[in-house]
Each structure stands twice: as structure tokens, then as C-alpha cells.
């Protein structure tokens, strides 16, 4: 390693030799950098899981455009939309089909007394909003009163529940004074707001949520004729629907709006973003401590080198060399531990938390930046290395 660095730098890798001379301190410093890395990785992981879980239902939508209430930011908020808009949309050229989407939230009391929160989508069984084989197969069953399909990735449900349902034993539970019969399972994946999803027919939805009326769905999904430009149709829809109560978004736009709202307007996204910054600050402080102690411990050696005739930039080089070594060698355990923790979190919470390809690159660059900042602060101590003090 020393030989490699020597030929790389064209000088002795003093920083490397200094850091590895004291093994215990080197290990502690790397643990500190790895810790900061893990902090950043976990916060980015949660943020990524939030974004991913927002996207999941949109990805399943069997259509190209969403007509939403003008105050809607996500699938879950906003006022109901006059159903009239649905029929108006149908009249716009390029639109082949429209279908309503009703949204409500249901508390599902478990036998043990705990509550699972379910996001309930009411769809027209003849033209369901979501693309799902399980949904298509259960279309006729859904037309019966109080029948539902459950998200198989719903959090904290008994392990044998889904297999039993799929084996042909419907599961029934009471909610909003109705008896809901779960006859099958489909897959979306729960997010941060609810434990899972339930899909019911629009008729069942109106029975479960008595304050809702058929004339006011939450969203309208628009299917565009094949070969027709989606943006053009969206523009035509915008022109024909009143902007006072309606917004027209393509699925991507709706998803982006949802994502930016939840990550920048709602506390949850801000908390994770803040966590990333805190992780970076922790790293800067740890690395600064290590580097400034190291400079202080070697003031005499540096003063000697100064007396021999080494210029100031030589010493800056040593400090930055140490900073980059700490960044690189701390990053490796950091990313490995973070990968393990992602697995644990995915299993425990059911959140879609996974390592993207760009994230390690980003964190590595951030780590090097973090260590360089610490190094830059630590170099101020070099001024104390005065060769005249050696005598």
C-alpha cells in the first residue's frame, strides 16, 4: 500500500503512514466516518422508500391522465370531484374511456385489539383503475356487496392470512359497521401513511363510507386512444374543464406532484432531508476531531520538515491525503453495513427500501467533500508548526 501510494504521489505517503501508525485511532476514525455514512444512507433510504411507496399505486394505474380536484396534491387528499367532469372529459377528442377512483381510509381492528390503517380504493369493477391480474380475475366477485381485495404486502398481518385467503377461505372483518369479506389478494405495497391497501367496488365503497356520494369521486382516470399524444389530450382536457375545481395531470405529473408535496411540504420528507444534513455534520465533526488531533500530535515533525525546507502546500497535502484516506476507507464498511440495515428495515417495516446505483456514488462524493471540509478546517492548526520553536 505504501509503495503504491508512493508511486502515486511521487512522495512518501506521510498521511497514510501517520494514520496507520496508530491502529486504534485509525480504526476509531474509520468507525466514525462509517457511522456518519450509515446515518446518511439510512436517511436517504427512508427518503427513497417514501418516494418509492408514493409511486407504487401510480405505477399500477391503467390509464394516462388523472383528472383531480384543484386542491389535490396526492391520491389521499383534496376535495371530491363533481362526476360531471368525468362525462365532460369523455367528450374530449382522443379520450376513449374514463373511470372514477374513490379514496377513503379505513381502520381495521385486529383480533388482538391493534389497528391497521388501510387506504381503500373504490373502483368500477368493469373498468378497474389498476392493472392487476388478481384484480381482473376477481372482477365478478368484487361486484358483490362488501367484498374486498387486500394488498398482500400489508404490514403486520398474521402470516397465514394471505395464504388462507388465496386457498379459498375468505377472511371477514368488521369496519364502519359493515362486514367486509376479503376474497383475494393483489400487490401494491404499503407506504408511510397506511399499512396497506384495500380495493373494493365503487358500490361497496359507498356503503363503507356513508358520507360519500356516487356523484363525487376523488379522481378520474382517463385512458387515451392508442397513438394519440397524451400531452395534447391533457391540454384539450385542461381547456374544456373548469380550472376553478379541476386540474388535469398526466400520471407522471400527478406522481411528481405527489412526490414533491410529500417530500418538501409534509414534515416526513423534511425530517429525512434534515437527517441527511445532520449525518453530514456529524461526519465533518468526527473527521475534524481526528485530523486536528493528528496535526497537533505531529506539530514537531511538521516544524522539522518546515526547517528542512518543505513549503506550506506540502503540509496541506498531508492533511488532505489523510482526509481522503478516511473518506475512502470509512465508506467501505459504511456502505456494507447500510446494505445489511436496508435488508433489516425492509423485512421489519415492509417499506420498499433498497440501495439505488446512484446513491453510493452520491454518498461517496458527499463523504469526500465532508472529509475535505474537515481537512480544510484542520489545516488552520498547521500555522502552529513553527520551526523556531524547535530550539
Amino acid at each position, binding site marked *: 500500500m505504501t509503495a503504491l501510494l508512493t508511486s502515486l504521489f*511521487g*512522495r*512518501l505517503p*506521510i498521511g497514510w*503512514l*501517520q494514520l*496507520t*501508525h496508530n491502529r486504534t485511532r485509525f480504526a476509531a476514525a474509520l468507525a466514525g466516518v462509517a457511522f456518519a455514512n450509515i446515518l446518511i444512507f439510512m436517511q436517504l433510504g427512508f427518503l427513497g422508500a417514501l418516494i418509492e411507496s408514493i409511486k407504487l399505486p401510480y405505477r399500477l394505474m391503467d390509464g394516462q391522465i388523472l383528472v383531480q380536484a384543484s386542491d389535490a396534491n396526492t391520491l389521499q387528499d383534496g376535495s371530491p370531484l363533481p362526476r360531471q367532469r368525468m362525462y365532460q372529459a369523455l367528450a374530449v377528442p382522443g379520450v376513449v374511456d374514463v373511470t372514477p377512483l374513490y379514496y377513503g381510509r379505513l381502520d381495521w381492528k385486529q383480533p388482538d385489539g391493534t389497528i391497521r390503517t388501510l387506504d381503500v380504493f373504490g373502483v368500477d369493477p368493469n373498468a378497474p383503475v389498476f392493472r392487476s391480474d388478481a384484480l381482473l380475475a376477481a372482477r365478478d366477485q368484487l361486484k358483490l356487496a362488501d367484498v374486498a381485495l387486500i394488498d398482500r404486502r400489508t404490514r403486520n398481518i398474521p402470516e397465514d392470512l394471505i395464504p388462507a385467503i388465496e386457498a379459498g377461505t375468505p377472511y371477514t372483518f368488521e369496519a364502519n359497521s359493515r362486514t367486509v369479506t376479503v376474497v383475494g389478494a393483489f400487490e401494491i405495497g404499503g407506504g408511510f401513511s397506511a399499512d396497506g391497501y384495500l380495493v373494493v367496488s365503487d358500490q361497496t365503497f359507498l356503503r363503507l363510507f356513508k358520507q360519500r356520494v356516487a356523484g363525487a369521486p376523488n379522481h378520474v382516470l382517463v385512458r387515451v386512444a392508442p397513438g394519440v399524444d397524451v400531452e395534447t389530450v391533457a391540454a384539450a382536457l385542461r381547456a374544456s374543464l373548469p380550472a376553478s375545481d379541476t386540474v388535469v395531470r398526466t400520471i407522471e405529473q400527478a406522481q411528481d406532484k405527489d412526490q414533491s408535496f410529500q417530500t418538501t411540504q409534509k414534515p416526513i420528507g423534511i425530517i429525512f432531508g434534515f437527517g441527511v444534513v445532520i449525518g453530514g455534520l456529524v461526519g465533518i465533526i468526527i473527521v475534524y476531531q481526528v485530523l486536528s488531533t493528528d496535526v497537533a500530535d*505531529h506539530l*514537531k*515533525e511538521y*516544524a*522539522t*520538515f*518546515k*526547517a*528542512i*525546507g*518543505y*513549503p506550506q502546500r506540502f503540509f496541506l497535502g498531508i492533511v488532505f491525503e489523510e482526509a481522503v484516506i478516511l473518506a475512502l476507507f470509512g465508506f467501505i464498511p459504511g456502505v456494507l453495513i447500510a446494505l445489511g440495515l436496508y435488508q433489516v428495515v425492509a423485512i421489519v417495516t415492509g417499506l420498499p427500501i433498497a440501495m439505488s446505483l446512484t446513491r453510493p456514488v452520491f454518498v461517496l462524493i458527499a463523504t469526500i467533500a465532508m472529509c475535505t471540509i474537515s481537512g480544510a478546517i484542520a489545516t488552520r492548526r498547521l500555522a502552529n508548526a513553527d*520551526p*523556531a520553536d*524547535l*530550539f
Partner: protein
Amino acid sequence: MGASGSGKTTVLTLIGCLRDVQAGSVKLLGQELNGASEDVLVQCRRRLGFIFQAHNLHESLTAIQNVRMGLEVHGATAMRRWREACTHMLAMLGLGERMEYLPGNLSGGQKQRVAVARALVGNPDVIFADEPTAALDKDSGHEVVSLLKRLGRERGTTTLMVTHDNRILEMADRIITMEDGRIAGDQQF
């Protein structure tokens, strides 16, 4: 030589380009140091060799790496045959067997000899030594100074040594005595 506080070390740090000259004139190898820029001072230091009271070796570097540091400062040309130069230097100082030792594993006299090697390896014009024997026992002190004298003579290098060790004075060619910041005596032998 001179009593404590007579200004020996101050003179050494001034001529050695380690302190700014504020008034008067100091000339080193033809270069005026009063008002010289940091760059000029750094250049001048490279023509000198320093040996301190303490060995001031880098604890994380082996003996040969420490000596190498004395050569590396002179740039790529000097480094071309660095291993031969450093090995030769250490061998001459009787440390041929200990080149890969860390300073922590060397005795006081050996460490000071590594420091001498570091000072000499760059072929300096002048060597400044500040009480190089203070931390050594009588024998190793004598050994280090006689090595310094022999190598200096072979290479034609001037050695300016601050000391109040009488055992070493007898080896000097010229003794300048200082008192209260002024030169009080100058004997040539």
C-alpha cells in the same frame, strides 16, 4: 558557545532562515535574509542541514524513510537514486542494519545518527546543529559529533554548532563565544 540566554540559538534561527530578520543584516551564502520573502527563505533552507537537540524524527516513518525526507525536498532530480543515497548515508553512520526500523525501536544515539543522515543526505552547504549531544550520553555524543566532523570534512561542508558541552569543544576548528547577545570571543585553531 556561551551561557544560557546569551543569544546563541537566536543567531542560529536567524541564519537558519527560521525567524524573520527584523533589523540589521544577515547574509547566508550570499543571500540577504532581511526582508526576504517566504519563498526565498524556503529555498535557502533547502541548502542547509539541521540537527536539533532532540532527534525530531517522524515516529511513523522508518529510518530510511526519515532520511528520504531530507532528499525528497530537493525534487525529482535528487530522488532519482534516492535508495542508493539514503542507504549509503545510513551505512556510513553505522546504521546499515537498522534501515527499516521505526524510531521507537532505535536507541537515542542511533536516532540522532539517523537525524544526522537526514541532514547530510541532501549535500547541504552549511549544517546547523543545536546542542546535538544534549540528549545523549558521553560516548554516543562524542561518536555523533566525530562522525559529523569527518563527513563534513570529506564533503567540504561547514558545520555551525551551538553547544556548552566542553567535551566537544576540543573538536572545533573555530570557537565563537557569545555573551548577552554579542560576540565576546573568536578563537581559531
